[in-house]
């Protein structure tokens, strides 16, 4: 296999794994922003929390990996409901600046809380034995965990898309994103809907954070370090869109990985420039609706 | 002589939804023209298209013979096209006087002044007072807009638009939301507007329409159904059907 093709496959593979993590974390943010118009810069906190819950369960209590991941989803999802009821709810319909500042405050508090309980270093993440090592596919071998990540991510994404297309819950969300007033007038309880969607989005972020701990290390500054990339995925994908951020995440993940391989110096700058250009060309995002 | 305002083939769609369908419209100088139609017919959309708040999907708009289709909103205002809003959009925390001064200042081109303190231009204030006096609002000039009754606020909305010295004035439901005790003064005021201003009024109140308008255009589902004098419109069976949902008795 030639070096170029091999490099291409590596980039595609690792880029795809990275994209999966970015998407899982960011899709909830897209729904939140599309559904309630709420700019939640602290969304990454849920991802970090998922990672912390999972690693604590595995490292301190030796909980099996699948259980720990599921626990991360449930715990963070439930916790997010509390936060939504207590705090976020007060600022629906508030101006942009208020939302930005409140969520910045949340990020700051989360950094302190994580540092206090877990210390400043990244959490060690050791995949279980059956997911470690290399997977030999004949023409090449791939890291097993990342392969798992891609497959699991794809499964979750499929589940999510099917769920939103086929279930009543999904239909209600799509209706409310499309036109909240109209949805309310046909009897959809948008308040409850939103809490559920928020919980689902936060839970997914927790899954993304937990599963992706090997790619995006879990440390106290997680939410702030990766904020820009999460925002890019959502803004470029299109607010409220479920599919849009997936393609944005692919674009971002593969581009970032490609630059890391070939031109590590300029990756970030190129991505920012690309985002700038894309948003100027289509301010509503690739799949967003223009108003 | 040029029409004060014309549209040719004006269209606007949001995806599959067509809110304006090939609208041909003509407003004569000094006109007293009403635009009526059921809810959702696209009347306010039409005003938004004409003023430039909304970009058309197709068609042309001409103001006094000049094509303004590509012109931004503020430029159209400078050329003499003004509108009022269906719901008051005044600055409620400012006084009546300041609201009118803002408009006059923009028209005079002094609103962008960075160096002098606001309110120091005597000519702006004088003109504002004169305008308010004509509408009977001079006594309340220094009061905050939010302290006025809704009916008086609608009059201020009118004063602001008049401060722009328009040649074409689009009034979007000027009496909407005004209690009947106060609507009389609004109607009187509209009746006494200068004859050289071309007026287009969107209204639901038929009494008002028949009292003020010399020509009426009926808009249904984004398209012009019929246009004519008040008598013609009142007698037209299609109009009755649209409003009453039934065929006129044979």
């Amino acid at each position, binding site marked *: 296999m030639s070096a170029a093709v091999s490099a291409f496959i590596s980039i595609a593979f690792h880029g795809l794994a990275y994209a999966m993590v970015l998407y899982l974390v960011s899709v909830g943010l897209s729904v939140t922003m599309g559904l309630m118009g709420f700019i939640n810069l602290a969304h990454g906190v849920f991802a970090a929390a998922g990672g912390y819950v999972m690693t604590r369960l595995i490292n301190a209590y030796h909980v099996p990996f699948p259980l720990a991941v599921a626990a991360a989803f449930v715990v963070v999802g439930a916790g997010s409901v509390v936060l939504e009821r207590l705090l976020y709810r007060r600022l629906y319909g508030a101006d942009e600046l208020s939302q930005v500042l409140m969520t910045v405050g949340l990020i700051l508090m989360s950094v*302190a809380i994580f540092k206090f309980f877990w210390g400043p270093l990244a959490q060690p993440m050791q995949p279980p034995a059956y997911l470690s090592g290399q997977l030999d596919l004949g023409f090449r071998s791939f890291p097993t965990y990342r392969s798992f990540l891609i497959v699991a991510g794809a499964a979750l994404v499929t589940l999510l898309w099917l769920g939103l297309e086929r279930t009543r819950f999904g239909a209600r969300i799509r209706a409310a994103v499309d036109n909240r007033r109209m949805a309310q007038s046909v009897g959809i309880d948008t308040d409850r809907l939103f809490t559920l969607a928020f919980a689902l989005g936060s839970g997914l972020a927790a899954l993304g954070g937990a599963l992706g701990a090997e790619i995006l290390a879990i440390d106290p500054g997680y939410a702030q370090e990766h904020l820009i990339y999460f925002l890019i995925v959502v803004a470029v994908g299109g607010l409220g869109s479920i599919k849009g951020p997936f393609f944005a995440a692919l674009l971002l993940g593969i581009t970032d990985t490609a630059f890391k391989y070939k031109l590590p110096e300029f990756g970030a700058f190129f991505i*920012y420039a690309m*985002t700038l250009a894309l948003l100027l060309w289509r301010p509503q995002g690739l799949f967003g609706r223009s108003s | 002589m040029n029409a004060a305002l014309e549209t040719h083939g004006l269209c606007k769609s949001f995806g599959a939804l067509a809110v304006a369908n090939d609208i041909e419209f003509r407003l004569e100088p000094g006109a007293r023209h009403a635009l009526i139609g059921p809810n959702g017919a696209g009347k306010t959309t039409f005003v938004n298209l004409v003023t430039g708040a909304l970009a058309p999907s197709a068609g042309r708009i001409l103001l006094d013979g000049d094509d303004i289709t590509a012109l931004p*909103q503020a430029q159209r205002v400078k050329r003499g096209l003004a509108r009022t809003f269906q719901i008051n959009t005044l600055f409620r925390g400012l006084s009546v006087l300041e609201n009118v001064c803002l408009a006059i200042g923009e028209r005079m081109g002094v*609103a962008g002044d960075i160096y002098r*303190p606001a*309110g120091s231009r005597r000519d702006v*204030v*004088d003109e504002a007072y004169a305008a308010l006096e004509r509408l009977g609002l001079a006594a309340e000039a220094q009061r905050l807009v939010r302290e006025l009754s809704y009916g008086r606020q609608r009059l201020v909305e009118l004063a602001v638009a008049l401060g722009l010295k328009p040649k074409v004035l689009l009034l979007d439901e000027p009496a909407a939301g005004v209690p009947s005790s106060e609507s009389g003064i609004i109607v009187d005021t509209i009746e006494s507007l200068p004859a050289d201003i071309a007026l287009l009024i969107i209204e639901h109140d038929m009494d008002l329409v028949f009292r003020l308008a010399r020509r009426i255009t009926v808009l249904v589902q984004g398209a012009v159904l019929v246009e004519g004098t008040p008598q013609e419109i009142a007698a037209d069976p299609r109009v009755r059907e649209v409003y009453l949902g039934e065929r006129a008795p044979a």
Partner: protein
Amino acid sequence: MSDALAGRATQAVEALLRRHRLRPWEALPWLAGAAAFFAFPDYLALGSQILINILFALSLDLILGYAGIVTLGHAAFFGVGAYTAGLLAAHGWSEPLSGLVVAGLVAGLVGLVSGAIILRTRGLTLLMLTLMIAVMLQEAANKAGSVTGGADGLQGMDVAPVLDLFRFDLYGRVAYLYCLALLFLGWLAARRIVHSPFGRSLTGIRENEARMHAIGSPVFRRRLTIYAIAAALAGIAGALLAQTTQFVALEVLSFERSGAVLIMLILGGVGRLYGAFIGVPLYMILQDRFAQADPVYWDFWIGLLLIIVVVFARGGVLGLGERIAQRLSGRG
């Protein structure tokens, strides 16, 4: 016009003008600034930092509080000003005042160009674009290490005495007065702008853009103008930092700095001209006392304070003050 009407018009003009006249209490910040110079001779370095950040926050207030443009990248202009002044001083142009002017102009130009590109967008898109501009500049500064010093920072600056008379001394006395003087000039400019018809129209644009379009206001042009002016002022603040500390680090362009100045402003109160004068010293003095001791606690408490302010006291300290004053005067 009748005499009675003319009389009322005169009254109205006087009432309007009275709002713009200098009030006695507006001398307070400057008295406090001068008093601090004599009362805290050992803290003048911190004092200069505070003054610089007040100017920075004041420039942000112009676009955020008055024009309503929410930005996460205002540090871009601060950083551009800092690096411009730093590079000038490091390459032989050591006269500080002219360096300051050039830095302001360059930052203003960056503001003008970036604003022209991005100010047509709204909401999240605009927020993202302000952020993109800042991070792109930061990346560029990082990569152009040979010019900017990269992650190590820009050093080797030679700053000549101000007006050829006042040499920057080790105790920071000249630096402090230099910053105070420039802050005063910046404040004069900001105050003039805010009280002008232009400034009033910005408030109109912020509160009801549709209305402003409908009265023929050139909305885009006005927003772009204030954006460029604010960028220039921010650039001057950055240049002050470079000249007084003779060092420029990459963080002058960072998201952290953009975020910090946002927090400082909200604490004091947005859109009231003096929010910066209250929020900045409050934040920086608290930070100086507590952040050194335990950074973890600092993040936690400032985060909590921010949330509390946003939810309960959106207008910051000045907003609270206004509410109290209203209650006291019985207008509630």
